[in-house]
Structures are given as structure tokens and as C-alpha cells.
């Protein structure tokens, strides 16, 4: 048996951020899957327009609609505004965690967490502001589905941020949890992007288009 030369990798670091980390790829691919879902939902939304004479549809065949067909803007605007603004503390947390600075990381995450919980409350008001239930017609169904799917994303993000905070407070900040915080941040960016898409589709396209 001949001896073989060896490539010793023992001195390589044990963690990596961003696209070098396998977990980043897992996270990103899951976001891709969800993006495809949201895109298909949006396509469905626009596909269904062709089956209605009036868009957004008025209820039934009454000449005067049973309800105001355009969804109200206030709750949704607050929702989008809140999570968009909360991107700032998330950016802050992201930068801080890479330098393993505990306090700003936790504070940033806490602010985002609070914003996320507030957003969930606004989303519940949003459903009210739609004026219709999901079983009214196909338009109602797709609007509810879009909002509900996004609500799930927000809940997931809030849960993730919550776990990260508790863990950091219990065990302290190390590189491994720091990677997790960057994942949560990436997910937050994505969630805001999806929120903007949903916001435009549901609230502005019936007004503008």
C-alpha cells in the first residue's frame, strides 16, 4: 500500500455565514418554494378576473352591492408599514450578531418580535376590513388565502425570533446561534417582500388596474 498525501482541514472554521453555510441554502430553498407558492396564488388571483364581469365582484346579482367591494386600506397599510419599518432593527440585529454583540442583537430581535406580534393583530383586523368571508366567491377565496398564507409566514417568523431571543438569553450568543439570527433576518426580508406583493395585489390592483 502506497502512502497517500492528505489534505488536512482541521484548521478550517466551524461555522460560516450566508451562502457558504448549508443551512443558508436550506433556508433559501424553502423560501424559493414558498415564493413559487405565492407567485402561483397571485397568478390565480389574476386568472380569476376573467370569470367576473365586475372586478372586484359585487355580491350576488343585486344592483347595489351588499358590501363595499373594495377592501379597506387602513389595517393593511399599518400591517405593511409596521413590518417594513421593523426591517431596520432586524438589519441592526443581523450586523450585531455577526460581531457577537449580545445586547444589540437581542434588542433588535425584540423590537422585530414586537412589530411581528403587532402585525398579526393588524392582519386580524385586515380580514375584517375585507367585508366578505372566504366562501363568498372565488375572488373572496383567493384574497383570504393570500392573506392567510402570509399570516402563517409572519407567525413562523415571530416564533423563530422568539426562540432565538430566549436561547441567546439562556445560553449567550455564539457563532452558531448567530447564523440562526442571520437566517431569521433573511426570512424577515423575504417576508416583507412577500407582504408588499400581497399588499399591492390585494389592495391596490383592484383600485389601479
Amino acid at each position, binding site marked *: *500500500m*502506497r*502512502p*497517500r*498525501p*492528505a*489534505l*488536512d*482541514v*482541521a*484548521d*478550517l*472554521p*466551524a*461555522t*460560516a455565514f450566508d*451562502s*457558504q*453555510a*448549508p*443551512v443558508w*441554502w*436550506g433556508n433559501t*430553498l*424553502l423560501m*424559493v*418554494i*414558498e415564493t*413559487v*407558492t405565492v407567485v*402561483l*396564488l397571485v397568478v*390565480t388571483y389574476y*386568472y*380569476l378576473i376573467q*370569470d*367576473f364581469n365586475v372586478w372586484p*365582484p359585487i355580491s350576488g346579482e343585486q344592483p347595489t352591492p351588499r358590501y363595499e367591494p373594495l377592501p379597506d386600506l387602513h389595517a393593511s397599510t399599518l400591517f405593511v408599514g409596521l413590518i417594513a419599518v421593523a426591517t431596520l432593527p432586524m438589519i441592526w440585529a443581523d450586523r450585531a450578531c455577526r460581531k457577537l454583540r449580545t445586547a444589540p442583537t437581542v434588542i433588535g430581535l425584540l423590537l422585530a418580535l414586537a412589530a411581528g406580534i403587532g402585525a398579526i393583530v393588524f392582519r386580524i383586523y385586515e380580514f375584517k376590513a375585507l367585508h366578505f368571508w*372566504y*366562501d*363568498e*366567491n*372565488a*375572488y*373572496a*377565496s*383567493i384574497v*383570504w*388565502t393570500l392573506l392567510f398564507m402570509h399570516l402563517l409566514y409572519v*407567525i*413562523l417568523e415571530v*416564533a*423563530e425570533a422568539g*426562540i432565538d431571543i430566549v*436561547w441567546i438569553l439562556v*445560553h449567550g450568543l*455564539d457563532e*452558531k*446561534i448567530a447564523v*440562526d439570527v442571520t437566517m431569521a433576518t433573511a426570512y424577515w426580508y423575504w417576508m416583507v417582500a412577500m407582504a408588499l406583493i400581497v399588499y399591492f395585489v390585494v389592495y391596490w390592483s383592484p383600485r389601479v388596474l
Partner: protein
Amino acid sequence: MPYPLDVPAAESSDPVWSEANLREHILLEQTWRRPPGIYGWLTATNHKDIGLRFIVTAFIVFLMAGVLAFIMRLQLAVPENTLVGPDLYNELFTVHGTAMMFLFAVPVMEGMGLYLVPLMVGTRNVSFPRLLNYSYYIYLGSVLLLFVGFFLNVGPDVGWFAYTPLSGPEYSSGKRVDLWSQVVTLAEISSLAGAVEIVTTVFKQRAPGMSLNRIPLFVWSQLVTAFMIIFAMPAVMLCSNMLSTDRLAHINTQFYNPAEGGDPLLWQHLFWFFAHPEVYIIFIPATGFISTIVETFAGRRAFGYTLLVLSMVATSFIGFGVWVHHMFATPLPQLGQGLFTASSLMITIPNGIQFFCWIATMWGGRLKLTLPFAWVLSFFLIFTIGGLTGVMLASMSIDQQVHDTYFVVAHLHYVLIGGAIFPLFGAFYYWFPKWTGRMLGAKLGWVNLALMFIGFNLTFFPMHTLGLLGMPRRIYTYFRESGWAERNFAATVGAGVLGLSVLMFLVNVLISRRSGLLAGSNPWGASTLEWATSSPPPSYNFLHPPMVRSGHPLWFDPPDTPVVTGLALEHREVLVTTTHDAKPHHRYHMASEAWETVALAVVTIVMIVSVVFHSLAIPVGLPLILLVLAIWFWPTKETKPLKDPNRLRTVPATVPMIPDPA
């Protein structure tokens, strides 16, 4: 040696274990093997365990769905038969289609990928071992749901395509379609998880030196497939969930209700946007088998490696743009249909290039006519017919006549059995020695192949003319005066032969597992890394993960190619390399077995099934899932510092040799 291929005796290439190697081996084995007992078996996270489980489970599904198909053939053997009634017949073909497409073809290909990809790229396990475990149980749940449902008479009966409104709440009473929709959801969750595993493993865990242009063609095929899964599967999950919400009590959405602005065509668009790529999700891994087997037995690297890779990528892209050719009979705008004819024809070009490259490889090599290679050769004879009838179906005008007839049944079986099952059996014969350490018996193998070839053609060739004579699909009986009797009888006889052939394969596997010839590490003299370790591979795959300097390391790499050392022995660590050039980047600590994966799978399955029966399932189930997820993702505090100065870092004097082919 009675085996047709003369190979160096396996023992001679086995590594001589130095003391240091032995010590490393023991430590690695302790670290990587699963915990003992039932707990370890349930929570297994090794890609070889789970990959084989996927393959075996999928093969059982194949057998069961095959039996259903045979019952259908018995029913159709003679006109006006009364063996099964329309209700059972509808269940039979629906369960057959659903099982074959969702629960056999995709999982078996993913199982092959999960087993082989980490070996081929030279790493120890897939990137997310716990997700792997979870995805298997979700898949198992979906299999059980479909078949237990079928035996309890809750089997779906609306076709695997489940067109609304037939599958909608008004025309399908009961829970049959609801369960179908949950079967699909579970199957897709599992496939998506598998796809994420494969993409990440290929991108981040390749052996140092395995730059993108050195990835084996099989791994490319799995990578392309995984991306197709990621982009296609959400569509079917979405449309089947929309069907669920349309049907379920207390939800009752209106997605497919034409009276309330819903649209049955929306279902068809979403479904075929998934289901056409699905065909390529099944076929592209098969092209990976073919490329690998042709390379090995032509004894040369594949002609046009880049062309083959680009063809796969092109196929996957075009595959997303052809779905409307399943809807040529629907009232859609002519212009759109013309465009889809063009794109459907265009997909022939990359597939043709692949064919030409394989043929060029064969002409440029020296062919060894072995059993796996013979399966691939029959692929050429069969799949070409399916491809050419596919060209006919791409034509909108011709499709208007043959759409939804037995011509299509013939076409799709020529494409899927010829294009996927024959290569898959070839792959079974090819990699069985790697899985078990023993060769599959050759004599039975040739009989298996001959019977399969005869039985298949006898079953499906007559169906071409049956379709042209006007026999529609999915009919449970036909009239004698229609003139379809003889061909149908022939098809049933053929189905019997086909079944016999599969039985032969099973017998062969059972015999060979116990008393097949010992294979050694590289019985075929192949070039890819999975043959660089013992058969079956140890739990940690490679004592020292390899480094590569060519696309065919076992053939062309210089003997002084280094191996990787310095990875932790006392916890599960793999080397992460850069995405493009595969330069060593960092060490990645992998998760080990955890009960949470099984618990989460159980909670997911229970929730998804009980959604059908009770509206409280979601409000109760979702928080439960979140809870288990939180426990799962609760990061464990390292008990040991990550950099252990005392850990074993000796470079052993000798390491297991990659056997020289010469």
C-alpha cells in the same frame, strides 16, 4: 468466476487496515452509526438507511400499484366483463396512477439520489439529516393513507388528475377525494424536503476539487430534478389544497365553482403546470442512470458532457412551458395552443441531443454487454417509440384525435416504463452490489429482462391502435362490436408476463441478497466515487473523504491525489466546500438522531389526515406543530468546544487505496 464481467477479485483491492486507520474506523463508526435498538431504527438519519427505505417502500408501492393495474387488465381482457364494476374500476385506476406517479416514481428516484449523491460527491451524509428522517415518515404516511384508504373503500375514484368539478364537492360525495388530496400534500412535502437535501448536498458538500464541471452526470441529473421539484411541486400542493378547502365543511371556498367566478380550467392549468414537469422529474434521473451505465460499460467518459448537462437543464426549463398540451381539447385560444405545440416539439431537441451523445459515446467506446447495459439498450428500443408518439401528441391537430384515448395510455407507458423503469431496473442491477455487497444473479437477471421486454411490448404496443380505433381511456368496459377485444386480450396476457418478470426480479433479489457473488468495492470497474469505498459502505462512507482531480476519479485521477483528513472523529462533521470550485471552506457539524423528527412527522400526518374529518384539526394541529418544531430547532449547546486541541489529527501512514483500474 461465473459472472460475465471479469473483474479483479474484490478482496485484492480491499484496504489493508493500519492500526491508525483501524482506530479511526472505530471512532467514526461509533460517531456515525445510528443509536442501537428501535429508537435508533426509528430516528435513523443516515442517507443510506433512508435512501434504501425510500427505494424499498417505493418498490412495494410499485408492486401494489402493479397488482391494481393487473386487475384492470383482467377486467378489460374481454368485452363486457363483469369482474369489477365501475366504482371499483375507477378506484383502481386512480390509485394506480396516484401511487405510480406520486408514491413510486418520484420517491424511488429521490431514494436513489439520497443514497448515491453523497457517495458520488464524496461526503458523509446529506446536509440536513433530521429533515431526511422526517421526509421519509411523511412519505410513509402518505403511502399508508392511500392504500389503507383504498382497502377501507375510501380510495380516490376521480383519476390521478382529479379534474374538477368531478372531484369537487358536488360530484364526489364522501371523503375519497379529500384523502387523495392529503395523500398528495404529504407526498409533496416529502419530495420537497428531499429536493432541498439534494441541492444543498450537491452545492456545499462536494469533495474538494469537484468543481461544477467534474460533477458526475448522475449527480447533475439529481440536481436538475431537485430544482424541478422545487418549482413544480408547490403548484400541485396549492391546487389540491384549494380543492380540499372547496370540499371541506366550514371552509367551502369557491375556487372551482363556475357559478361563483371559480374555474375548472384553473385546476387544469395548475395541475398540469406541475404534472408535466413531473414527467421530467421522473425521466431526468433515469437519464442520469443511463449516462452512468453507458460511461461505465463503454469504458470512456461520456461524449459531450457539457452538452448532456445543458440538455438536462434545457429540458427542465422547457418542461415548464409545455403544460397546455394536456389541454389541447379544451376551449382555449388558438394562438396560445400553437405556441404550446411549438414548445412541446422543441423539447425534442435537448432530448435528441442526449440520445445522440449516448450513441456517440457507445461508438467511441468499447462496449461490455452486461446486464445493466442491456437494460439501457432496451431503453433505447422502447423509449424512442414513446418519444416519437410524444412528438405526435405535441401536434395540436393530431392530439385532438388521440387525446384521452389508449394511444396516450400507450405513449405514457412507453415513456415512463421505457424511459424510467427500464433504466431503473438497470440501475438496480448496477448498484445492487454497492447496497448489499453482492451481485444480483445474472441468469435470472437476463430472464427478467427478456420477460419484461416481451411483456411490456405485448401489453402496450396494441394500445396504440386501440386508441386510433377510438377506445377512450378510463373506461371500465367496452362493447364487443367495437372490435377492441383481441388487442385488449393480448394486452392482458402481456401484463401477466410483465408481472411474472417483476416476480422474477423479486426472487432474484431474495436469492442474491443471501448467496449472490461477493462484489468487492468496484465490481464494474466504474469511475465514480461511490465505488471508492467498500460495498456496502460503512456508516461514515469514507474513512478519509476523497479529493478529486477529474470527472472520473477512479479512472483518471493521478495516484497521488490527496485525501481529506482532520475532520472530527468524535462528532459528526463534514467538509463544506465552495459552491463553484469546491474549495474547502469550513467544517460543518451535523445534527444527529432526534425523536422530534418522528414526533413532528406523526403530528403532521395526524393533523393533515384529521383536517378531513374535523374542522378543529388546524387550530389544534398548527400550534402543536409549532411546538414540536420549536423543540426540534432548539439549538443544542455544544458540550465540547468546537476546536478540540486534543483530537486525533494524525495523518495515517496508509489509507484505503482507491483501487487502480489497471
